[in-house]
């Protein structure tokens, strides 16, 4: 249900055929999925300029063909241990529009991307109340898919939540905290 509503507010045309398609990617051993309509493109890891005062999972900003967009590290966002970048590490450029129509484009660093999968609504179940590392509000549902290795569960992410307004407010809060903490820290240094 939630998904249908979101698709209606989505910014893409030609959604019909792609409505049930999800791009799956890996963070550690876990597979996650995002609606393909929210994915703008996938690029290899490129130079990222760090931003001061931001929480660690905000890796910085990058140049997406002349446009500067923020990049977050999904691993760190979901509380997983950071790892060294590999050849497979890449950035998924995601876009979401807020309720007020403002568009957000953000890059998300993931360990590797897998494939585009068709997950019909019937194969999506609500997220369990527990047993999941990431906050419930980021989860759209659990998608059941079959592949060569048998049946698997993909955690489908709610991109609107992951990169949306609430998230940005949180980052802004973190920046303020960081500024305050830094003040305190340097006080200690000075003392």
């Amino acid at each position: 249900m939630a998904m249908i509503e979101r698709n209606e507010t989505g910014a893409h045309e030609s959604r019909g055929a792609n409505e049930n398609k999800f791009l799956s990617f890996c963070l550690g051993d876990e597979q996650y999925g995002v609606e393909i309509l929210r994915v703008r493109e996938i690029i290899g890891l490129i130079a990222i300029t760090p931003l001061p005062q931001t929480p660690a999972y905000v890796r910085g900003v990058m140049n997406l063909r002349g446009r500067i967009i923020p990049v977050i590290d999904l691993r760190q966002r979901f509380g997983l241990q950071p790892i060294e970048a590999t050849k497979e590490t890449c950035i998924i450029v995601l876009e979401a529009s807020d309720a007020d129509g403002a568009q957000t484009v953000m890059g998300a660093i993931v360990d590797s991307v897998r494939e585009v999968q068709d997950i019909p609504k019937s194969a999506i179940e609500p997220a369990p109340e527990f047993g999941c590392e990431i906050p419930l509000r980021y989860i759209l549902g659990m998608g059941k898919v079959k592949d060569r290795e048998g049946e698997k569960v993909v955690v489908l992410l709610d991109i609107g939540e992951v990169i949306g307004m609430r998230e940005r407010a949180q980052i802004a809060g973190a920046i303020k905290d960081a500024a305050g903490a830094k003040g305190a820290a340097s006080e200690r240094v000075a003392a």
Partner: protein
Amino acid sequence: MGLKASIQAAAKAAVLTDAADLQGLVGLGELLRQVAADASSEGCAEVEGRSNEAADLADQIVLRQVADVDDAFRRLVDAIGHCDTYLERASAPPREPADPELLAAWIAACESTIPELEHLAVTAESEAAEGAPLGGETVADLRRRIHTLKGECGVLSLSEAQSLCHDLETRIDAGGERFPTDAILALCDWMRALTNRLGSDPNADEPDTATVRATLVAHKDAPPMSAAPAAAANGASALPKTKPASAVAPRGATTDATTDADPFADLAAIPADQLVSMNLDNADENLGDFALEAREHLANAENAVLSLEANPADAELVNVVFRAFHTIKGVSGFLNLTRIVEVAHAAEFLLDKVRSNKIPLSAHVLELVLASTDLLGQLIGMLGGADAPREIELRILVRRLEAACEGRALAAPGARAPSTAAIAAPAAPAAAAAESPEKQTAATAPNPADAKQAAVAKSIASKADQSVKVSTQRMDSLVNLVGELVIAQLMVVQDPIVSKIHDQRLSRNLAQLGKIVRDLQETSMSLRMVTLKATFQKMARLVRDVAAKAGKRIQLEVEGEDVELDRNVVEEIGDPLVHMIRNACDHGVETSEDRRKVGKSEIGTLRLRAFHSGGSIVIEVEDDGRGLSRERILRKCQEKGLLDPTRNLNDIPDSEVFNYIFLPGFSTAEKVTDISGRGVGMDVVRRNIEALRGSVEIRSTPGKGSTFSMRLPLTMAIIDGMVVRVGAQRYIVPTLNIERSFRPTPSQLTMVLGKGEVVRVRDELLPIYRMRRVFNLAEGCDQLAEGLLLVLENGKRRACVFVDEILGQQQVVIKSLGDSQPTIRGVSGGAILGDGRVALIVDVGGLLESATGSNQS
């Protein structure tokens, strides 16, 4: 389909069609035939005639049977307009939702027309105050605009607005001791409210008109003024002094000396082959617009005259012709085209008599009017480089028009005049010498004048009809794309592989590419430039209102309203300007009484100036009021504990003292009014200007007045930046904020316990902030002696920032760090460098603040 519906359908189709759209024209023709059919069934002969006429025109255009397609199309549109007006007059319809497209376009247009109207109203009032006759060009222009507005409101079926405009028009025509500026301004306010309402809801009701009506009524009792047109003075100045009461005679000048046998005798002195010369020296871009408009008006007039021949009783048609001439006269007077004024005025005068039924509308009058439109067409053609008509023709026509005003029909002299003139010409050197200087130049040295005229005319012709309305969104996306192109080009040129190739042809081509890209960038930037005209015009209204409220007399002098600035900057400076001007009027300029006491002119002067100065734009607000009181500001500073008590007050420079009024604490009204009479909202001013990366400076002399000077960047999109390196990161520091840079020697450095490091620069101790610490970077130089110190300044705050090295200076395009990204203190944005990486742009103000916070907390 009813008549009304079919007319509306035709009007709508006409708006959506142009002369080149054959399909549309065929459709329009059919609609018009429908209109004619409906009209005949409803018995509206006039509408029937006109729509048939228009339909014929449409067919002719389609079949290319007309010489001037555009002209024919205009006539067609006019005809539809007439049908529409007729219908409205016949049945004032209730408010009906107008076509949303038209309405939106109109609302958008109002954003500029209303301020212009206000500006004209204020100008007209001040002109009147200076003793200019009330029939002046400004008033004419004003009237024309209100009239246009009325028409537009009519089309959009805004009946209240239409009737208000109409009443106001009547009111202006009626004259009176005072010019109804208040009423016009009230109308402007009302129109604003109206457009606001309609903007959110196209079907909204019109606002209450009571206030506007009240201002109108307040003026109604004023006695009518004498209707002497000031344009006469304008035209007369260009006339030969030998004939004081001639061509452009003021109304009622019935005592022309030429009532004898040969009314044209005195014109014989003019050589038959002499052409009309026009003074195009001060030609400006408005000429192109004028030529275009005037042709339209002439076409309207001609059309109306032709209809008048068939239907001489139609008073509205006479009005149409009258207005056409009147408008042409007004605008050409404004543009100093005296010869056009001469003819237009004479014709207008004649039509006025016809209009007020003083003389009958005879075939002779119609012939004269047509002759006038022809001649005016020729004169206007001169602006576009066409051949000038003969001087003698102009004189004879004007004479005949004047005679007709007195009810005398002077026949054209025919072939007689040239021959007489040819004989008389050499015999009348005295008369020639007495001619106006303008004509002398033409007579003695026609060639250079012709060449100049031709050149000017050419430039006007090229200006006319060549502007396009583009949505700001598209423009911005173009500018963005060009910005990306610049970056992409740099990336190619600086690519290590490319730079390794030493090939002459390649480097030549790359250089050429670079040049084109830079030109393209400059051109696209210039697209965003707009003049300050609209902003300054708004200020005229503000000055008037504030002065009236404060009971002062203040005149505003504006200079440099043609200076161009980035659209974004222009939008942002409105608020600061309002604050500064309000302050200047309210507190700076004294009351008339006070001014008299100190021996100043009773009328205060406010100067609003804009000019270029070293890569930026300076906007100044200067008043001749009492000036800032240094002592009072200092006293207030001491009270507030803002000053170091050990400082000698006399040593503090003026600039620092005046800067205190920008402090937020100084901005509470009653305190400030007590101290210096300045400061309301001054912190807002400074903040806004700094947000635009500009600066503000105050100069003031007690008793003489103050000047507030804003320095603003030409554009918001590009800055000159110094690229610095800290560890592996590069940052861009705006060059504007860097005072100097140096490598410190150990002797200059001191560690102040608990306060951090300081450096002695030219006998001044400045705190050192390490960029690495402020931005929390892992890498970076630790030894002060191994890196560089940048002396940064922002307002009056100065400090040193420690960086590893300076990599170079370059212009960068400022980009935001992603949409709605939270602001990070010390960073104002990002820029993409030549290698495609993002560098953060340092916000010096924020950096110094956050550094102070973290180092001193």
